[in-house]
């Protein structure tokens, strides 16, 4: 490697003293764990909400479908009854 100024600067910087204090700050673990628990709780809640929304959508869809079926079967029955009555009363 060429001994140019940039290399000299980078090499000197690489050999700078590292801050040696590696002790965990007071309360650090507790803060991390609290946030982690909160996030996992939020995730479970979000999952539950999504599941609930899906279930509601399925219920509504099935209700709409059965309503439509009931309606159409009822009108068919009425039409049959009408025809039968007309047939009876027609001379």
């Amino acid at each position, binding site marked *: 490697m060429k001994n140019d100024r940039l290399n000299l600067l980078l090499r000197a910087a690489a050999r700078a003293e590292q801050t040696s204090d590696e002790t965990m700050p007071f309360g*650090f673990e507790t803060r*991390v764990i609290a946030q982690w628990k909160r996030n996992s709780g939020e995730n479970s809640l979000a999952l539950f909400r999504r599941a609930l929304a899906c279930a509601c959508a399925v219920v509504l869809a099935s209700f709409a479908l059965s309503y439509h079926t009931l309606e159409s079967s009822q009108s068919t029955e009425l039409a049959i009854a009408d025809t039968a009555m007309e047939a009876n009363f027609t001379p």
Partner: protein
Amino acid sequence: MPETSTEACLKLVRDHDEQAARELMAQLYPLVLKLVRAHLPHRSSEEDLCQMTFIKIFNNIDQYSGKVPLEHWVSRIAINTCLNQIKAEKSRPELRLADLSEGESRVVENLASTTDELPSSDRNSAKELIDRLLGQMKPQDRLILNLLHIEERTIEEIKALTGWNSALVKVRAFRARQKLKALYTQLTGRTHL
């Protein structure tokens, strides 16, 4: 709690065991702290970034497959956290010669007058100067120069940490060096770097 192996500890953390999480944190804290200190954005505290890194680690612990050593996976998360923070801090004020400290100015003068290694007393100032110059660069350029020249990591290690391929690492390193050189020249007004 007796000291458990990392594997067992991870299993317990996946089951949301607090004690295991504390043990894992104690084990990984020096590594995370070292990486955060090496890639620390200007306006963030190392404690906040360490905290963000550990929260990401625990939130995504289920995604750790065990195919790579845990330290590699954790290093990647720590570096990405710093990188994202650097990206979030968009402003990079221009550096002027008058902004340099006494020690940094001495380093510039020494570099101008010699082709020998800088004295050990200038090392910390050299690091501060490099940090100032890197602070003006794009996050990825800053990252590659830090990993390659300050932490003196190999191309293989950088590949593992960044997910870039060898060619990309080399190209980015070359371009980042050119940019650093240009910044230094702009700062000092000297063309022969």
